[in-house]
């Protein structure tokens, strides 16, 4: 198809789009609503994911050594643990470091500090382990307990108490994703149906032209192009409106966002991901519109 035909087809589509008036506005509104819901689901699942990661990062397990062990041997074990693939970081805290940390934590509590002076250093050296995969704690602890180093260990700060929380959060996130996808699908289908109906109406108003175009041997793509253009225009305008709405909505909900997920820097996120966000909005809008026109073309435009 030559450029001339292409541009004429696009131009005819733009003309039809503006001729539809109120119907265009209604169609765009429903696509905007769909995009808004897509965005909301996206933000919610992002918050949930961040929260989960946050909690996971805070959980680490501490293995306490007996007070009188050989520090070299302990460090040997720490080196071994930190080389395990599931481990992100394993850090050794000597007796002295533990004391400093303890003093810092209680530096306003005179009684504790005083009694500490009398006791000397009652603390144990320990290793604090951060995991890449929180589910691997158990196996690592088992490994350590069954190794030649088992005699060094006095105590383990059990992770298992925290495990149910993580599992529950994980389940919640999965549920949010599933429900979110279902809602998105429902609204996408509604948006496609409404857009499809608008294009069908244009086809009806345009039926004379279509009939004549077929009779005089128009290029089939020239006949289809105005309708595809129209469908994509609905999505295109809806995407921009959705973007214009998105920023103030995020801005005003920022305090609430930060109260549930303090680690999310929404404004920074919007700015750093601006191109991606615009692309997703335009992409989803235009694809929704194009799908609608293709369905209408298949159903009603026998060319």
């Amino acid at each position, binding site marked *: 198809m030559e450029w*001339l035909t292409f541009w*004429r087809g696009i131009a005819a589509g733009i003309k039809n789009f503006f001729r539809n008036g109120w119907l265009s506005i209604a169609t765009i509104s429903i696509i905007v609503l769909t995009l808004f819901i897509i965005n909301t689901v996206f933000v919610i699942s992002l918050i949930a994911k961040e929260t989960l990661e946050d909690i996971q990062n805070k959980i680490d397990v501490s293995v306490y050594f007996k007070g009188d062990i050989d520090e070299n041997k302990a460090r040997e074990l720490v080196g071994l643990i930190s080389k395990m693939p599931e481990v992100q970081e394993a850090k050794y805290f000597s007796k002295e470091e533990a004391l400093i940390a303890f003093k810092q934590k209680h530096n306003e509590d005179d009684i504790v500090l005083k009694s500490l002076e009398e006791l000397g250093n009652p603390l144990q050296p320990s290793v604090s382990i951060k995991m890449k995969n929180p589910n691997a704690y158990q196996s690592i602890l088992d490994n350590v307990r069954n190794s030649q180093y088992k005699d060094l260990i006095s105590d383990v700060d059990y992770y298992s108490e925290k495990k149910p929380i993580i599992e529950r959060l994980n389940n919640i996130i999965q549920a949010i994703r599933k429900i979110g996808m279902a809602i998105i699908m429902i609204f996408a289908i509604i948006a496609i149906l409404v857009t499809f109906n608008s294009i069908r109406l244009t086809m009806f108003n345009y039926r004379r032209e279509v009939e004549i175009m077929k*009779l*005089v*041997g128009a*290029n089939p793509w*020239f006949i289809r192009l105005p309708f595809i253009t129209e469908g994509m225009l609905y999505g295109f305008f809806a995407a921009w409106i959705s973007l214009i709405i998105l920023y103030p909505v995020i801005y005003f909900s920022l305090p609430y966002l930060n109260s549930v997920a303090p680690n999310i820097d929404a404004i920074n996120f919007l700015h750093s991901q601006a191109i991606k966000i615009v692309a997703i909005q335009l992409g989803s809008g235009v694809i929704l519109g194009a799908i609608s026109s293709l369905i209408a073309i298949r159903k009603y435009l026998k060319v």
Partner: protein
Amino acid sequence: MIKFHNVSKIYSGDVVALRNINLDINSGEFVSIVGQSGTGKSTLLRLLILEELPTMGQILFNNRDIITFTRREIPLHRRKIGVVFQDFKLLNKRTVFENVSFALEVAGRGSRDIRQNVGQILDIVGLTDKSNKYPTQLSGGEQQRVAIARALVHHPEILAADEPTGNLDMINTWEIIELLLRINKLGTTVLLATHNKDTVDRINRRVIALDKGMVIRDQKEGKYMI
């Protein structure tokens, strides 16, 4: 140029519109296809432009079975056969000029090319001075001439007219027939489907008579007789 070989057309619901048609139409001919309403004249023309497919038999256009035309080739085939109808099929929101240029626009022709061609064709059908008028401002005969201009603007090999004078009075009817004869003289093959006895008798050219979907007569210089 056109060959119908044992062509039958059965519409859904067992309506037999054409039965075993055999025809041979040469380039440059003026052929009237006559018969009462419902005998398959329109169906014959619709098969030719591939608006319908034959149920049986073969239709050859320039020795090519038209059923073998691909999706891309069908529009090109249709540009070789201009069609006009009883109801003109004009776009009322477009001027005479725009109605004619529409056919070239949708085929992707350039605007200078379009202006030149449309001007020339409007001259042939005698509507140059009406080119900025809208169809509703024209008489029936003039509207049909716009439709003829649109059908001719691709310089087709064939002009197929389906009851073009059905909505016209006697004077306008004869004007249109004269125009068709003139177009034929300029080299275009003309197929005229009609049930109007007077016009056919006055044309005095080849007549193919249909009855109940069958060719009952095919005469070189025929009269309308059934």
